[in-house]
C-alpha cells in the first residue's frame, strides 16, 4: 500500500489533494447519519473553506481526512482520498506514512494539542524525526529553522519552553510548524483561528497564506467565521445538517449566495459582528443529527420554502461557477451585502 501511495503522489500533478465523493458518516455506533453523501475536491494549491454551524458535519469530514474519527463514528459510504489514497482502505501503518508527509493539521485551542510536560521544541523535533531520517542533532537544527520560518523571533529560546509558557498565537505557530515539517500537500485547519484574538488571528492567517504561496500548500479551512474564510479561501463549501448546500468561488458565494441558508448566514454576518458564534438569528434550529427528512433539510426555516420542497430529496446541482442544493435556485434572485474586508 505504501509503495503504491508513493507512486501515485509522484505523478500527482493532476490528482486532487483531497477528493471526497459521496462521503457518508454515521455516529453513535450507527445511530445517526451525520454526514450525507458529501462531495467536493481540493486541487493542488487551492484553499477551500468549509463553513457551517456546529453539528453540520464539517468537522467530521475533516477528521476523516486525518484518520481520527472518534470511536463510534464510521464511514458508511463513498470515498475520501488524500493524495490519491482512499482512507477506507488505508491501514494503521499506512496512516503513519500519510500523516505528516501528505497531510498535516492544526486545531482550535493549540495548547491542548501539545504535551504539557515536554518543551515545544522537542515536540517539533520529534515530529521531524517521525517523517525523516534526520539525527537528533540535525532534527533539532531543522526544528529551530522551522520555528523561525513560522515567525518566532527567538526560535532557540522558544525551543526550550513548555506549552504552558507560550501564548495562544505562539502555540498555533508551533502547531503549524509541526504540521508542515513533513512537507505535506494538504493542511487541514479546523477552527484554527477561532480561539485567538483578532490581531493574532490576522497574523496566523498571514502565515498560512505565505506558506500556501511559497510551498504550493493546499488548505482545508474549517470555520464558522465567514470573514476569515473570505480572506483566505479560494472556494467555499457550505454545510448544513450533514449535507453540502452550496459551493462556489468564495467571492461569488459570499456576495451572491444562491442558497437561502447561505443568504441567511450572510445577512447575519453583515449585521457587522463577524465573530458572532451563534447563527440563532435564523428562526428555528437545524434538524437533529441524522434525522431522516423526506425533502430539503432547511425547509422548516426557509423563507422561500414551498410545499414541494419538503416532499422529495433535493439534489446538488451545478449553478454558475459552483453548485447549489435548492429547487428554487433559478427562480430566486438572492442578493446580499458582501461582508466588508477587515483591515489586517
Amino acid at each position: 500500500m505504501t509503495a503504491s501511495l508513493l507512486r501515485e503522489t509522484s505523478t500527482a500533478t493532476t490528482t486532487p489533494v483531497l477528493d471526497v465523493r459521496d462521503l457518508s458518516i454515521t455516529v453513535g455506533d450507527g445511530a445517526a447519519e451525520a454526514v450525507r453523501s458529501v462531495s467536493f475536491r481540493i486541487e493542488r494549491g487551492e484553499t477551500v473553506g468549509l463553513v457551517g454551524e456546529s453539528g453540520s458535519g464539517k468537522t467530521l469530514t475533516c477528521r476523516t481526512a486525518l484518520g481520527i474519527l472518534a470511536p463510534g463514528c464510521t464511514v458508511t459510504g463513498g470515498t475520501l482520498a488524500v493524495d490519491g489514497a482512499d482512507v477506507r482502505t488505508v491501514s494503521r501503518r499506512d496512516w503513519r506514512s500519510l500523516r505528516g508527509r501528505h497531510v498535516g493539521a492544526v486545531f482550535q485551542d493549540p495548547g491542548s494539542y501539545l504535551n504539557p510536560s515536554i518543551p515545544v521544541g522537542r515536540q517539533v523535533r520529534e515530529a521531524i524525526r517521525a517523517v525523516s531520517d534526520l539525527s537528533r542533532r540535525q532534527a533539532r537544527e531543522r526544528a529551530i529553522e522551522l520555528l523561525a520560518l513560522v515567525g518566532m523571533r527567538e526560535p532557540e529560546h522558544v525551543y526550550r519552553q513548555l506549552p504552558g509558557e507560550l501564548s495562544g498565537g505562539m502555540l498555533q505557530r508551533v502547531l503549524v510548524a509541526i504540521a508542515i515539517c513533513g512537507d505535506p500537500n494538504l493542511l487541514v485547519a479546523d477552527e484554527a483561528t477561532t480561539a485567538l484574538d483578532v490581531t493574532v488571528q490576522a497574523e496566523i492567517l498571514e502565515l498560512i497564506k505565505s506558506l500556501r504561496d511559497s510551498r504550493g500548500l493546499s488548505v482545508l479551512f474549517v470555520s464558522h467565521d465567514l470573514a476569515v474564510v473570505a480572506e483566505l479561501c479560494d472556494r467555499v463549501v457550505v454545510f448544513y445538517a450533514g449535507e453540502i448546500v452550496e459551493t462556489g468561488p468564495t467571492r461569488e458565494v459570499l456576495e451572491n449566495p444562491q442558497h437561502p441558508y447561505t443568504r441567511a448566514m450572510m445577512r447575519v454576518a453583515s449585521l457587522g459582528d463577524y465573530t458572532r458564534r451563534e447563527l440563532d438569528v435564523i428562526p428555528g434550529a437545524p434538524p437533529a443529527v441524522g434525522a431522516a427528512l423526506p425533502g430539503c433539510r432547511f425547509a422548516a426555516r426557509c423563507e422561500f420554502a414551498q410545499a414541494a420542497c419538503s416532499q422529495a430529496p433535493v439534489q446538488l446541482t451545478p449553478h454558475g461557477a459552483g453548485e447549489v442544493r435548492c429547487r428554487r435556485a433559478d427562480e430566486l434572485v438572492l442578493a446580499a451585502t458582501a461582508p466588508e474586508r477587515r483591515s489586517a
Partner: protein
Amino acid sequence: MAIGVLTLDGAGTGIDWRSGRAARYLRALGRGVGIFVPVILLSTFITYGLGALSDTNPAAAVLGETATPADIARMNHTFGLDRPFLSQYVHWLGRALHGDLGRSYFTQIPVSTSIAQRLPIDLSLALVAIVFAALIGGGLGVLAATHPGTWIDRTVTAICAVFMSLPAFVIGIVLVVAFATTLRIFPSAGYVPFSLDTGQWFLHILLPAFALSLETAMSIARQLRTSLVRELAQNYVVGAEVRGLRPARVMTVHVLRNAAGPALTVLGASIPVMIGGAVVTETVFSLPGLGQLAVSSAEQRDIPVVQGVLIVTSALVILANLVVNISLGKLRPGRTR
C-alpha cells in the same frame, strides 16, 4: 548536581542560574529539603519517644535483680538516662547518624551490627517487590486502559478487587502451598545472599517478593488505569497521532509520562506498607530478616534493637519517598513552580 544533563538537546545552551530550569530545580530541591528535614526529625522523635513509654528501666534490665540502687544510678548515668529528655533525644540522634544505634540490652551486640546483617534480606525483598509491583501493576493498568469497557477491562478490575483484599501473608501462604510444597518448583524457606549465588538468591526471593508486591500492584493498576483513561482522552494524544508518531511512542513517551504521576504516588504511599509487610512475609517464608529480629526482640522487651529497626525502616521509607518525589518532579516539569 549535573546541570548539564538538563539541556538534553545536543547543543548546550548557557546555564541561566537565576531563572530557567536550573533555578527551578534548585527551588524544588530547597523545598524538598525544607520538607524532609522536619519529617525526619519528627519521625525519629516519635521513635525515640516510644522508648520513653517503657516502664522497664534499662539499667535494671541489664544489671539484673541483684543490682543495688547505686549500681542502677551509675548505669543510668552511663546510659545517659539522667539527662533531660530532649537532650537524650539529641544525643541519641547524633549517635544514630554516626551509625551507632546502641547495644541490645541482653546480648550487648551493637544494634547496627545485627541490623546490618539482616538488612540486605529486607532490601532485596522490598526492591524486588517494588519492581514486581511496578511491572505487574503497570502492565495490568495499561492493558485495562487500552481496552476500556471490554472483558479484559472487567477481568482486570475483578482481579484487582480480589487481590487487594488479601493480606500479603495469606497470598504468601497460598503460594507456598501451591508452588513450594505441592509443586516443588520454588524453595519454601530460607535465603541465599545475592553475592553468593545470584540464581539461588532469585529463586528464594521470588515467591516472597511476589506475595509482597500483589497488594501494591493492584493499587497501582487501578490508579494507572484511571489516569491513563483520562490522558488518552486528551487532545495532545490526537495531536501526536496526527503527526504520524508511532502508537507505541505516543503511549510511552507522552501518555505514560503524564499518567504515571498518581500511580507513582500510590507506589510511594505503598512503600511503608510493603516494608511493614515484609515483616510478616519473612515469617511465612522463614527469611531471617529484620522482621524476625524485631519480633523476637519485642518478646524480650529489648528496646534498643526494636528502636533501631524502626528508625532504619523509617529512614528507608523516607529515602524511597524522596526518590519518588524527585521522579514526579522530573516527570511533570510543568507542575513545579
